């Protein structure tokens, strides 16, 4: 089972005293979608996305230079531990309807996992699986046991499709585990 850290990226952080303008500048310079607002010890206090700035500053006609990050951030922050499995991170995203989850080490913000990165990785695994399945079928054909194997692979793929669907809409705790199992299975069969 993949750990959350596999998908972890660098995180951009600012103190609560930073202005909304500082946050917007950081979002542009670091090419990120959000900034995590932390206290002096690096503990998460809130999170500001590009959308938060559009809605809470521009739409409401506020002055970005005088508005503080703490006034525009969303709080509390929903986080995961670096030791958590990916399934736990996905669960946090689904439960709270968010796309980004800061990762903590010793209560301090150390990284971030974004849904887009997870989906991109799952897509690559789907691709790998397709290649593996084709090879497996070829070998099975030689061994004249194609129907049973194909049935098996297709059943698993169907289940996988269901899981993927859930990522797009509702929670799935087992997505990561299912993927890992499936990969192991294909790997074992191919040996």
């Amino acid at each position: 089972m993949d750990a959350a850290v596999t998908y972890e990226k660098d995180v951009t952080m600012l103190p609560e005293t930073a202005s909304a303008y500082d946050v917007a500048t950081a979002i542009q310079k670091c090419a990120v979608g959000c900034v995590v607002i932390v206290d002096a010890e690096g503990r998460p206090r809130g999170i500001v996305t590009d959308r938060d700035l559009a809605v809470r500053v521009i739409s409401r006609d506020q002055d970005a230079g005088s508005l503080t990050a703490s006034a525009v951030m969303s709080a509390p922050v929903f986080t995961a531990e670096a030791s958590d499995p990916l399934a736990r991170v996905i669960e946090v995203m689904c439960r709270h309807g968010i796309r980004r989850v800061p990762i903590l080490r010793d209560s301090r913000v150390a990284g971030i996992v974004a849904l887009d990165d997870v989906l991109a990785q799952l897509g690559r695994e789907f691709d790998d699986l397709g290649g593996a399945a084709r090879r497996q079928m070829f070998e099975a054909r030689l061994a004249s046991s194609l129907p049973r194997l194909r049935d098996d692979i297709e059943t698993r793929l169907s289940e996988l499709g269901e899981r993927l669907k859930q990522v797009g809409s509702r929670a799935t705790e087992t997505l990561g585990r299912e993927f890992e199992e499936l990969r192991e299975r294909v790997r074992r069969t191919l040996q």
Partner: protein
Amino acid sequence: MAILDLDLRIAQTIECSASARAAAHRMEKDGIGCLVVVDGKRPVGMVTDRDLVLDILVGKRDARVVQVGEIAKRSPVTVPATATLAEVTRVMRKHGVRRLPVVDEQGELVGLVALDDLLRRVATESGDLAETLRRQLSGESGAEAPPRT
């Protein structure tokens, strides 16, 4: 399969002469992250919440004065309603976008296609495909057996 067979989203539009602030307000009110900028019925660009932040806040410009037509990218990327799913994903990847305006033969806006919808669609399709295959293999549901050689 053409994307027109999908349930396209209704495109939320805004006139190119509207202010950036009006656009942000629409996004807040309607709970959306992007608007298709139109000149009459013709789409001239897209503007996202992120575009507004980078242009207005980082650029220190007045949201009440700047028009969305200035922020929206020139020569907007659109896809024809006859485009296939594969063509749409290729365009999204090439331009690094998640949503695309869909236009008819006259270049008029007919809807919006979003990456999230495509993902759901692909997941459903792969499930259906597997189900069909399984039924054929087990000889269920009167499906014609594949010819044997």
